[in-house]
């Protein structure tokens, strides 16, 4: 608390002088700009009740705390949403149709989107198909380039502190973790955290690795496999501050991918000396890796996203560039081949939190050409409600 200053006034300092223009404000109430009739600042009418949300009442009224509507209305949109999720419903005002998104998962479609600003391979990604982050990678040199995807375009952001390729990552578009890879000094254990604006160096992994895989969040992440100078099965778990060694994978692999959470993660594909279809499930509670049904198509340099229960892997190299996409169902322990990407790529990255949607970006085509290609996968059924 500030102590009393030397200003002696019986009246509040006006807005025009940098004051608030008011002598008191309602405790806990959200503050808004005022009008000539109310004074320079004003509080909303009520702090509301627990669980209510602040909703706009347009440009000529104060917003109000209201009970969030869970299903009493359909969101009105002029076109179907870019990133529909299971159980989402909406009213398409252009077609005049009530629509929704539902399982079971279908073969899906990959749609080409606006490319990244900087073509890169051996990069990492985080977030979802609508809000994603790409970072690091290799152009003709290793880079710390960071770009943010808003569902339509990529925007350049502040770079990693250390340019690194062959890294892994996890998290959200505003809160991500980057770990491992190769920098100017060789294989690195470096960890950096993204806060939505900048990357900050954090405590390093215990074992430096490149071509590793990972998943999770800035509070709880998992890194596994890679190359320390030799192909590795090492697993480490991040608790928000430090990395702790965990049980290694059953099959050492590099240049592969993972998805899920630090508690329930899937590793798939990679290179063991030859391209691999190996799939393993990590249980954080049991601290075990368990072999699962292998992918239909063995490959390395693939990307993946989703949850351990339902996930996707896409692209990679089978000896040549691949566009193959497969969906994993943990309860059935099956991989199902679904619609392939439009552009076969290896050493790409991906984002997405469920099999209903994913974003693939970057990579390499034809063995030499670095790519900025971005594609979005929609893998759920869009249905129309029948009304009478």
């Amino acid at each position: 608390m500030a102590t009393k200053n030397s200003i002696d006034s019986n009246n509040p300092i006006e807005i025009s002088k940098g004051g608030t223009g008011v002598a008191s404000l309602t405790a806990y109430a959200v503050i808004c700009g005022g009008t000539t009739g109310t004074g320079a600042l004003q509080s909303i009418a009520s702090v509301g009740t627990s669980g209510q949300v602040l909703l706009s009442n347009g440009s000529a009224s104060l917003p109000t705390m209201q009970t969030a509507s869970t299903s009493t209305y359909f969101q009105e949109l002029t076109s179907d949403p870019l990133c529909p999720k299971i159980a989402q419903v909406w009213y398409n005002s252009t077609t005049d149709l009530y629509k929704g998104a539902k399982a079971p998962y279908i073969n899906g479609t990959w749609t080409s989107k606006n490319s990244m600003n900087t073509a890169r391979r051996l990069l990492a990604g985080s977030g979802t198909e609508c809000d994603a982050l790409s970072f690091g990678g290799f152009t003709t040199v290793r880079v710390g380039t960071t770009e943010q995807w808003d569902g339509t375009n990529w925007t350049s952001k502040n770079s990693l502190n250390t340019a690194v390729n062959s890294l892994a990552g996890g998290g959200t578009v505003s809160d991500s973790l980057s770990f491992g890879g190769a920098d100017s000094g060789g294989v690195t254990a470096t960890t950096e955290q993204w806060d939505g604006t900048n990357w900050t160096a954090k405590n390093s992994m215990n074992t430096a690795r490149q071509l590793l895989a990972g998943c999770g969040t800035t509070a709880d992440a998992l890194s596994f496999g890679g190359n320390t100078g030799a192909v590795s099965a090492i697993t480490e778990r991040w608790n928000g501050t430090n990395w702790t060694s965990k049980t290694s994978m059953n099959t050492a692999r590099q240049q592969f991918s993972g998805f899920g959470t630090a508690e329930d993660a899937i590793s798939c594909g990679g290179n063991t000396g030859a391209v691999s279809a190996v799939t393993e499930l990590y249980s954080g509670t049991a601290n075990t890796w368990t072999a699962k049904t292998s992918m239909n198509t063995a490959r390395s340099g693939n990307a993946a996203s989703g949850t351990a229960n339902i996930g996707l892997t896409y692209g990679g190299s089978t000896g040549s560039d691949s566009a193959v996409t497969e969906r994993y169902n943990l309860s059935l322990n099956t991989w199902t081949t679904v619609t392939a990407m439009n552009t076969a790529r290896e050493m790409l990255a991906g984002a997405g939190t469920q099999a209903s949607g994913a974003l693939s970006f970057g990579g390499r085509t034809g063995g030499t050409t670095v790519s900025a290609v971005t594609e979005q996968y929609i893998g759920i059924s869009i249905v129309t409600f029948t009304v009478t």
Partner: protein
Amino acid sequence: MPTQNSINTDIPIEVSKGGTEQVAHTAYSVLAGGATTTSPIESVGTGTSTYAITSAGAGASPVIKNLPTFFELLAADPGAPADGDTWYNTTTNLFKGRDNGVTVTFTVT
């Protein structure tokens, strides 16, 4: 409305001295703390009616958005739904609701 006070300054009082460092605020707009690269107090805006103020994460001011609508995800139909309730049964993958005391399934094509 307060009357004019005795402070005489042409420069708005800085945040570090307890002021807002601003000479005006947008009417009805929700205000948020500013970043070092912006004004000390930022205007979030007024938005469109029924839109909600939504976090934009740790590195940005909140934004006012048209939020998506979801049926409640349930593994089984609720035991005692009320009229008007709607939900999505994740076991049967059906959109369902309650109408006049009867549980109904929404027909989709």
